[in-house]
C-alpha cells in the first residue's frame, strides 16, 4: 500500500494539512537524513576511490597487477566459487524440506540456519581452529597424514562457508512458503518424477530469489575478513584473500596500493547493490502484473 494519495480538488487543502507535515518540516527532515547518510555512507565510499587514484592511474594499475594482489584476487574468486554453490545446494535442500512439508521442530531448524549471522566473525574462525588446528580435535591426525586445513586454503573455504550459510536459505524459505505446494502436487499427480517436478515447476518459480540470495552470499564470501583472518595464517601469495591483502598493504603504510585493492572490493559492493535493486524492481513489476490479471 502506498501512502501518497491524490485527493479530489475539493478536499485537497484540508487533507494535505491533516496527514502531511508542513513543507519546512519535510525539507528539514529530508536534509537531516541526507546529511547523516552523506557523512556516514557516501563520503566513505567516495574516499575509497579518491585514495585509490590519488597517486595516479599508473600506481593504481601497478597495485592491482602486482603478483601478490593477483594471487589474492584469484584466491578470493576460488573461495567464492566453492562457498556459493555449496550454500546454494544447502539453501535449496533446506527450503524444500521447510517450505513444502509440515514437521515438528521446524522453527528450531530455521533458527539454527540463522545462527551463523549472530556469531562474531572472529569466533567463526576460532571454532575451526579448535577442530582442525594443531591443538584441535583432528589436529594430530591431520598432521600425521600431512593434511593442512588451518593456515591453508581449506580452512579459508570452511570459515567462508560458515559465515555465508544463511544467505540463500533465508531468501528461499519465505518465497517457497508463499508459493505453497499445489503446483508441485499437480505435477506429481500427473506423473512427473521428483526431479522433473523440481526442474520444471519449482526452479522457474524460485530462480529470481535464488539469484538474489546468491548475489548477497557472493558479496559476503568475497568480503569476509574476521573469520578468514583467524584461519588464514596470512601467507603472502598463498593464503591471502583480497580483504587480507588490503590489511597487509595498509599496515605496511602502502596506502595507495591498499586503497587500490579496496576499490575493487568497493566496486564489487556497488555491482551487488545494483543487481539487488534490479531484481527487487523486477519482482515489484511482476507482482503488479499478477495483480492486474
Amino acid at each position, binding site marked *: *500500500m502506498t*501512502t501518497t494519495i491524490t485527493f479530489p480538488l475539493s478536499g485537497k487543502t484540508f487533507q494535505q494539512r*491533516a496527514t*502531511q*507535515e508542513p513543507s519546512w518540516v*519535510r525539507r528539514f527532515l*529530508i536534509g537531516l537524513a*541526507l546529511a*547523516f547518510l552523506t557523512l*556516514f*555512507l*557516501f*563520503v*566513505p*565510499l567516495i*574516499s575509497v576511490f579518491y585514495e585509490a587514484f590519488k597517486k595516479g592511474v599508473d600506481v593504481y594499475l601497478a597495485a592491482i597487477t602486482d603478483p601478490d594482489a593477483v594471487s589474492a584476487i584469484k584466491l578470493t574468486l576460488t573461495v567464492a566459487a566453492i562457498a556459493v554453490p555449496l550454500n546454494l545446494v*544447502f539453501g535449496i*535442500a*533446506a527450503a524444500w*524440506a521447510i517450505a513444502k*512439508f509440515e*514437521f515438528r521442530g521446524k522453527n528450531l531448524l530455521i*533458527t*539454527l*540456519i540463522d*545462527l*551463523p549471522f*549472530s*556469531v*562474531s*566473525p*572472529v*569466533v567463526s574462525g*576460532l*571454532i575451526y*581452529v*579448535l*577442530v582442525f*588446528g594443531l*591443538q584441535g580435535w583432528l589436529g594430530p591426525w591431520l598432521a600425521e597424514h600431512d593434511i593442512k586445513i588451518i593456515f591453508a586454503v581449506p580452512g579459508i573455504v*570452511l570459515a567462508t*562457508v*560458515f559465515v555465508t550459510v544463511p544467505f540463500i536459505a533465508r531468501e528461499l524459505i519465505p518465497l517457497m512458503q508463499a508459493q505453497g*505446494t499445489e503446483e508441485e*502436487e499437480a505435477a*506429481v499427480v500427473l506423473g512427473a518424477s521428483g526431479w522433473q*517436478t523440481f526442474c520444471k515447476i519449482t526452479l522457474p518459480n524460485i530462480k529470481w530469489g535464488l539469484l538474489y540470495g546468491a548475489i*548477497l552470499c557472493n558479496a559476503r564470501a*568475497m*568480503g569476509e*575478513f574476521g573469520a578468514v583472518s583467524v584461519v588464514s595464517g596470512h601467507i603472502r601469495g598463498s593464503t591471502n584473500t*583480497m*580483504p587480507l591483502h*588490503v*590489511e597487509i598493504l*595498509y599496515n605496511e603504510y602502502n596506502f595507495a596500493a591498499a586503497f587500490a585493492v579496496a576499490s575493487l*572490493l*568497493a566496486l564489487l559492493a556497488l555491482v551487488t*547493490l545494483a543487481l539487488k*535493486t534490479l531484481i527487487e524492481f523486477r519482482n515489484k513489476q511482476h507482482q503488479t502484473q499478477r495483480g492486474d490479471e
Partner: protein
Amino acid sequence: MNNFKQHSILPGFNLALGFTLLYLSLIVLIPLSAAFIRTAELTLPEFWTIVTTPRVVASYRLTFGVSFAAALVNAFFGLLVAWVLVRYHFPGKKIVDALVDLPFALPTAVAGIALTALYSGNGWIGQYLEPLGIKVAFTPLGIFVALTFIGLPFVVRTVQPVLEDLEAELEEAAATLGANRWQTFAHVIFPILFPALMTGFALAFARAIGEYGSVIFIAGNMPMVSEITPLLIVTKLEQYDYAGATALSVVMLVISFILLLIINLLQWWSRRRSARA
C-alpha cells in the same frame, strides 16, 4: 502414521531434510560445540579468572558501551531515513534507497580503512575536528563511528516495510479527532513502529558487538582503552593461549544466543502488533 511429519505426496523430504541436518551439523553445530566442549576442560574458577581479568572486563565495557551508543544513534537516524524514504519525494531517492544497504555489501576491511583515512588528523573530516580538540581515529570515538556505519541498514530495513504498510485511515482518523501532526506521530504512528524499531536496534547492537574488521583499523587497539573483545580473542590466539581465546569466545557466544532469543521475541511481537493494527 508417524507423528513427526504430516503426510504429503511430494517426494524428497528425507533426502532434503537429511542433507540439511548433515550439512548444518558438519559446518555449524559440531564446530560451535567445540568451543563449549573445549571450555568445559577448564574448571569453573579457572574459567572465571580468565573472563574477569581487568583487561577483559575493560574490553566488555568498551564493546558493549560503544555498540549500545552506535545502535541508539542508528535507531534515531534509521527511523528518520526510513520515514523520509517512505513518505517524501526528492531527486535521487531510488539511488539513496539502494545505497542504504552499502554497509551490508562493502567488505568490513574496506570500510575500516576508509573511515580511518577520513577521520585521522589529516583526513577529509579529521582535519576539521582536530583543531576543535576532537580526536576520532585511534580512540573509542573511532570505534563508535565504525559501528554506526556497520549498523546503519538494520533499523532502516526493519522499520521501512512497517511504515509502507501503515494504513492512511489511521492518521486521517487521528486528524479528524483533532490531533496535530506531532500528536498523530507520537500517539498513533510511533507505537505501531516501536516493535520494529526495537528489532532493528537489537540487530544493529548484536552485529556491533561481534564486529571486528571495520573496528581494528580505526580503534588504535590500546589495552584497557580501545581494545574490543573480538580483538582480544585474536590476540590471545596469536599468543597460542587457546584456553583463554576459547573461554572468551564462549562468553561472546552465550551473549549472541541471548540476543538472538530477544530478537526472535521482538520479531514475534512486531508481527502481532502490525497484524492488529
